[in-house]
Structures are given as C-alpha cells and as structure tokens.
C-alpha cells in the first residue's frame, strides 16, 4: 500500500536534486544563521576572531589526523548520504550556539535579520556555488562542509573557553537533538501564535520559515501549513499512502494510517470527527478535508486556545497535541489553578467551546 518509503531508507533517484538541496541548505545556514553571528559577536566584543583562531589550533592539537584515503572508494550514493549527514550535524551545531544559548547576549530575531543583510543589500553575505560535474560538485561540497564544520567547532569551543556557553549543558542539548521530537510541532505553533511575521512566513513558505527558529527544515517534500480559523476547520488525510511531515513532526498517531480513517474522513468528515475524535464542528463552520500527496505534506495551524494571553511560548507549546496538528483535535486548554492553588492539568477542548 505504501510505495514510497519514508526517511533515509528510500532509494536515491536523482543525485543532482539531492546535491541541490544540500547546497541550498548549507549556504543558507552558513550565510544566514552562522557567519552573521560571528560578526555580530566580534563587533560587540563578546568574542574575538583571535579567540576562534586559538580555539581551532587547540582543537587541532587534540584531534587525530584526518583519514582521506577512504573517500575515493565510496560510491556516489554513500557520499551524498554523508554530505546530508554532515549538513545535519552542521545545522544542529549551529542551533546549539544560537543566540539564546549564549550567556548575556540578548539578540532578537530582528537583530539577526538586520545583521545578515535581510534589509540591506550591503550587508548581505554572498552564497557560494559549487559548479561542475556531479563528481566535482560532490567534492567541492565535501570540502566546504568540512571547512564550515571546522569554523563552527572552533567558534563553539571559543564560546566555552570564554564561559559564554556551558560545556555540560551543550552536551545535554546535543544529545536531546538526536531524538526527533514531536514538540517541534509545539514550538512551531506556539511561535506562530505569538509572532505574526513568523506566522505569515510559515503560511506562505512552509519549511523555509522554520530555519528562522532553528528547526532543520528536513527534506520530505514541501510543507503546507493550513490555518484553522473561527469560520473554517481543516483536517488532513493522505488517502493513497500516509504522507505526513514525519521528519518534522515525528510519527503520526496510529489511526492516521488506518483505512477506516482514510475512507470515513473523506466521505463524511463531520460525523467522523465527532465519532472518532469527539470533535464537534459547529454547523456554521466550513469544514475542509485536505488529501495530500508526498510533494506537499500538511500540518494544521490550530486556533490558539482562549485565556492564554499571558503564557510564554514554551508554555503554549505544551498545549499543542499531535491530533491538533492534523485537525482531528484542538490544542489543550491552559492549566488552571484549583481552589487550593494547585495547578490543574490541561484538558482537551471541544470545538466551539
């Protein structure tokens, strides 16, 4: 039933498309997410280029000499996979030293955008191209990923040396990053609830907007984001397979892949939502069922629950459920305090409440 395998196990068909995706991401992260930060910090005197240089030589003195002879024996698929893994490491590494993790540095997204030249051509960082044959392109990308990672490692170590980042904390975060978290969904939704600019970008550009909030955008097709409003409720299905942005939102609930859900949600969505999920959509509201392909994988941006005005993004993220990202449920209600002042756990909310 499910012809295309999800994730890294699938066969690689189009080498050039994979390379293009790596190249595009790599240059985005270098020019938009990483290097502008170095310049920002050096200008502010938080860290200096010499710190980074010294950190590099220190790390080099401790590491073993690189083995180069293996590379030439590897096949094209293996080399491209390595590039993709290298890119993943690079992106994760950058997110670990994001401005939020550096002590005493209050850099907001607006500073980031300004710093990297979003508003001013003069400050824009040039992106690098990797022209040539497939073989040449792979080689150039391998070299660049290696170089970029060296600078990132040195920069990270320099931050530790300066006491701006705690080594233990960094290690913990790195480990946490290796487990894809369903709470990416929570983070994305909470951000969209509080930041209208991000929300507009998310709805318009999908995955590309995620780079802004340090979430690796992944590579499973495009991300379609559909907003639930007071007049329209949306729900997602993939009737012919089970397409879903797994790379971003983790695994689906079991029922998403089930034929009963696929058949019923198409034929009678209102009744299905009510009978399968206890979600009653009011008669005045319009209901849209989105049947997707693997090219655009959808997530729903649910409505923000009431009485959540004072809540932080982190707290809001906790209210986002897996079901609500598919449109089969609503986010949880905010926790309330009972008469004794104890916190009451969030409760599921019915539509129209």
């Amino acid at each position, binding site marked *: 039933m499910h*012809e*295309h395998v999800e994730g890294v196990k*699938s066969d*690689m*068909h*189009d080498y050039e*498309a*994979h390379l*293009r*995706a790596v*190249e*595009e991401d790599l240059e985005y992260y270098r020019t938009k997410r990483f290097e502008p930060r170095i310049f920002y910090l050096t200008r502010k005197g938080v860290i200096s280029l010499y710190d980074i240089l010294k950190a590099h030589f220190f790390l080099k003195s401790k590491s073993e000499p690189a083995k180069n002879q293996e590379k030439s024996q590897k096949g094209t698929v293996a080399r491209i996979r390595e590039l993709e893994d290298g890119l993943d490491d690079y992106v994760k590494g950058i997110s670990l030293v994001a401005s939020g993790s550096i002590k005493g540095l209050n850099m907001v997204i607006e500073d980031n955008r300004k710093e990297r030249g979003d508003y001013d051509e003069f400050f824009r960082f040039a992106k690098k*191209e990797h022209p040539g044959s497939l073989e040449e392109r792979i080689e150039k990308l391998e070299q660049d990923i290696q170089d970029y990672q060296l600078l990132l490692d040195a920069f990270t170590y320099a931050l530790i040396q300066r006491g701006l980042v705690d080594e233990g904390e960094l290690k913990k975060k790195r480990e946490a990053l290796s487990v894809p978290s369903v709470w990416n969904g929570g983070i994305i939704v909470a951000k969209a609830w509080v930041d209208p600019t991000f929300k507009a970008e998310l709805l318009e550009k999908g995955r590309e907007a995620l780079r802004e909030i340090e979430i690796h955008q992944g*590579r*499973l*097709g*495009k991300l379609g984001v559909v907003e639930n409003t007071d007049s329209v409720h949306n729900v997602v299905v993939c*009737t*012919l*397979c089970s397409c879903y942005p797994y790379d971003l939102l983790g695994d689906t609930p079991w029922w998403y892949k089930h034929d009963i859900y696929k058949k019923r949600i*198409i*034929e*009678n*969505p*209102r009744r299905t939502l009510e009978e399968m999920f206890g979600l009653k959509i009011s008669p005045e509201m*319009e*209901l*849209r*069922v*989105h*049947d*997707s*392909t*693997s*090219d*655009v994988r959808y997530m729903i941006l649910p409505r923000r629950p009431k009485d959540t005005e004072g809540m932080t993004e982190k707290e809001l993220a906790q209210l986002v459920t897996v079901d609500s990202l598919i449109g089969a449920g609503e986010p949880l209600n905010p926790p309330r305090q009972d008469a004794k002042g104890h916190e009451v756990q969030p409760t599921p909310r019915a539509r129209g409440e």
Partner: protein
Amino acid sequence: MAVEASPSRFRVGDRVVVKRENPSGNPRTPHYVRGKSGVITLVHGVINNPVDHRGLYPPLYTVEFSLRVVFGRETKDSLWVDVHEEWLEVA
C-alpha cells in the same frame, strides 16, 4: 541553482476536471475525484522532491471539490485534493 520548471498551465480560480484514466500519470491520484470537476485553489508548481520521486513531476495543484459533487451529500464541506497537472483538463 534553479530547478528547471515547466510553467503551470492552470491558475487559481480555474475550473478543471480530473481525467477518468491516465495510465502514464501519477497513480496516486485518488479514485473518488476521477471524472469530477473542481476549482484550483493553489498552484504549487513543480516540486523538487528527490526523496520520493525519480526526477520531477508535473506542476501540482490543490483542487477544491465540493463534497456535494463528489458524494452527492447535502453539505457545504469540501475536499481539497492535491493533483498533478497531467491529470487535469479544462472543465
């Protein structure tokens, strides 16, 4: 580097009909919309999706079908189905 993309044939608001059969088209086009007419609501264009396809597929569209048209049910609810261009004809 730009993906080589053929321009999309349809635009938002166009009325289209899904072909009943299309042996060479993407087999993952839902059966329930075949032969039905709907309206283009989104033009996604050609999507570079190397994990799932060999090469590029034709442009993709979101087509809105009324549940009334598809299943004859009295309702204002709708199905928004993503369909590749080779399956669509002018209604």
